[in-house]
């Protein structure tokens, strides 16, 4: 069973991203579970979401303490006051960051077997007109990068899940996911 944690901000749709990831895995024949951080979401405040992907029935219903994969939707969260992105990450885990930077720009890259991947999901979202220019929505886009980096889900299933989940601009969202799939480093 693989456990994934996503970091975003209230209002950005990290929960939807976790759900799209779960649905994609389900379409790929996996057993899945996804859930938000159990708390009060506030616009602007840091939030988390989670996905479990497994080959067998998932019977446990408890928090995720030691994720295999981390996804950071908003790069300003790294190092932000009171936020510890890396908490509990398994050694050998993967971290996918929405950033213009290179993976090596992050000091935890390579430490403890952790590998960092980056993708400019913001630029891709803007290009695909997701959200507004000042507040682009990156939640669908980033799932493409997760698919590529982890190999947990196929990009086709990701696109299908996006079509099932997103009410508007389905096409553009799917294209964005494909873009990050291709461009993650």
């Amino acid at each position, binding site marked *: 069973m693989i456990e994934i944690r996503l970091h975003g901000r*209230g209002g950005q749709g990290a929960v939807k991203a976790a759900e799209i990831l779960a649905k994609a895995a389900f379409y790929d024949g996996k057993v899945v579970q996804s859930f938000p951080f159990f708390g*009060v979401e506030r616009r602007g*405040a840091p939030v988390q979401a989670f996905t479990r992907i497994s080959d067998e029935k998932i019977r446990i219903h408890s928090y995720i303490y030691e994720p295999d994969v981390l996804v950071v939707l908003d790069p300003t969260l790294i190092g932000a006051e009171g936020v510890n992105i890396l908490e509990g990450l398994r050694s050998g885990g993967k971290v996918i960051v929405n950033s213009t930077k290179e993976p090596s720009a992050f000091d935890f890259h390579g430490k403890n077997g952790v590998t960092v991947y980056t993708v400019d999901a913001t630029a891709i979202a803007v290009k695909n007109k997701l959200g507004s220019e000042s507040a682009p929505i990156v939640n669908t886009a980033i799932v493409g990068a997760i698919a590529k980096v982890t190999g947990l889900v196929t990009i086709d299933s990701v696109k299908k899940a996006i079509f099932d989940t997103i009410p508007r601009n389905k096409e553009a969202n799917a294209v964005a996911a494909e873009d990050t799939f291709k461009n993650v480093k």
Partner: protein
Amino acid sequence: MNEKKKDLTLSIPKEEIMQPGHLACQGCGASLAMRYALKALGRNVILDIPACCWAVIDGPFPYSATGVPIYHTAFETAAAVASGISNGLRSVGKSGATIMAWAGDGGTFDIGIQALSGAAERNDDIIYTVYDNEAYMNTGIQRSSATPHGAWTTTTPVKHFKKGEKKDLDSIMVAHGIPYMATASISHPEDLIKKYQKAAKIRGTKFLHVYAPCPTGWKSDPAMTVKVAKLAVETNVFPIYEVENGNYRINIKPSKRKEVKEYLSMQGRFKHLTEEDVKYIQENIDRKWDTLLKKEQYFSSKEK
């Protein structure tokens, strides 16, 4: 080292009783409402707050951001708890502090209206504030009876957008015969503060209806919170008036009322509306404003 400048212009009291670190969303109108109310009332205040965004904004156990005592209470009990505090303290001769219930529109127009009606009937010595963001925001934007016609919420989805007018709680409270009822908006803090100061001096039940835009629930830009509130006043969507012992006074009369369209277009919750819908809304606003003008004309101390 600094060049000596004159002081910053302060049109409202300087002291900050509410402190930062609270948990309101970016650009939250409800947090502004509290900031102003406490500036008006000072520190000799006891608040009670039912379930609503403010139950979260103040911060979790064991913390509080507000600087005055707060009793967090069950959703439907704001007025009754305030009555109990007020009358309890009176029973031992301690009636100094201002006792204020502070509730959202859901906790007031809907689930809390009975307790409010009871307190008003007994004319218990409290201020009751409803900060109105026109929906249940704390639970994620469901309709309340304060939600205006035309609005999207999660329980009035676009295909079934909210039908029917906002409950006219102001008139309902006036019908209760309380000594003071007033509306106010976070866009007009000076007016708001004056009203709280007046309310604090009146004995009996005072009802204050404060307009408090919610960028999260209204799908508006947090930076536009004050602008949206101002437009609500300028379009007569939210008239600013007060009723003292049955006498009406409109405090702000826009010289030329703006089109409601302008107000609606700033908020995602209205973006599905057709031209026709907007026209309907405009007509209703104008009709209601006329009625209010009539009330001011026929039911005011001047007219007597």
